[in-house]
């Protein structure tokens, strides 16, 4: 059997990302350790009570992983929303929407009925997309 261990987003600033995921979303820090010898910081967060995959927040890398121009391009692509999407599921989307809205999370769309359930989305400070879905019995007439 294969399962997903962790997923990863590129972020522009790890401190900014950490504040967003913990203070606004209320997520827990799964790990935050600086590897001094590499100038690298392993930062992993996840929703409270979820022992499933964590979200690793990695800084846009510089040389020698990427040269300066590529590093800047990657940072810009993430800022343009091309970084990818994290798909979250909840059993009470409206509660999460109300709570996070009150915490200052700017949603891109209100809870919207889809054939597969109800969903909404928002972005992290770097521009990474996060989709929140409450899965319901499939109903082509609902969407």
């Amino acid at each position, binding site marked *: 059997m294969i399962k997903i261990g962790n997923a990863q987003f590129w972020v522009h600033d790890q401190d900014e990302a950490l504040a967003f995921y913990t203070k606004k979303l209320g997520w827990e820090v799964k790990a935050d350790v600086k590897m001094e010898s590499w100038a690298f910081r392993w930062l992993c967060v996840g929703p409270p009570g979820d022992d499933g995959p964590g979200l690793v927040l990695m800084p846009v*890398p510089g040389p020698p992983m990427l040269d300066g121009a590529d590093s800047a391009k990657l940072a810009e692509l993430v800022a343009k929303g091309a970084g990818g999407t994290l798909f979250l599921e909840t059993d009470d989307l409206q509660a999460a929407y109300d709570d996070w809205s009150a915490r200052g999370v700017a949603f891109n769309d209100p809870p919207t009925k889809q054939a597969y359930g109800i969903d909404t989305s928002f972005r992290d400070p770097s521009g990474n997309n996060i989709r929140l879905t409450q899965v319901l019995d499939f109903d082509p007439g609902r969407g």
Partner: protein
Amino acid sequence: MANVPAARHLLRAKDLADARYFEPLAVADLAAAAGLSPAHFSRQFKAAFGESPHQYLLTRRLERASALLRATDWSVAAVCFAVGAQSLGSFTVSFHRVFGMTPLAYRAANPPAESHLRIPRCVALAYGRPQNRTFREDKAASPA
């Protein structure tokens, strides 16, 4: 809203403590979430859940603090404030009372976070690779 058991309102307060423990929550905030006066609320909460709301919130914070001491390299002060404790002194005292040792002793008694991080090999390979002095000298040498 008819026939809602009173405990349902108390559970709202418990959920708030679980979810927003890292904010400067006080018993008054929890009481407000349950829609009760603080004194009445504390008695009701204790009757329902076996401990006072203050103790519940404190142990929620201490549980998170112990996890952060094991999983991060943050200072004790950073851990204290990250879990919503307002005073480093009383945080340390509470921690000692519950865990039987200081936060630093607790961290020392557990394997260092760095030793049990499951950092994928590709990350070690990418970030641990030293930069050669000739990296991108092709572009640096060519005229703009």
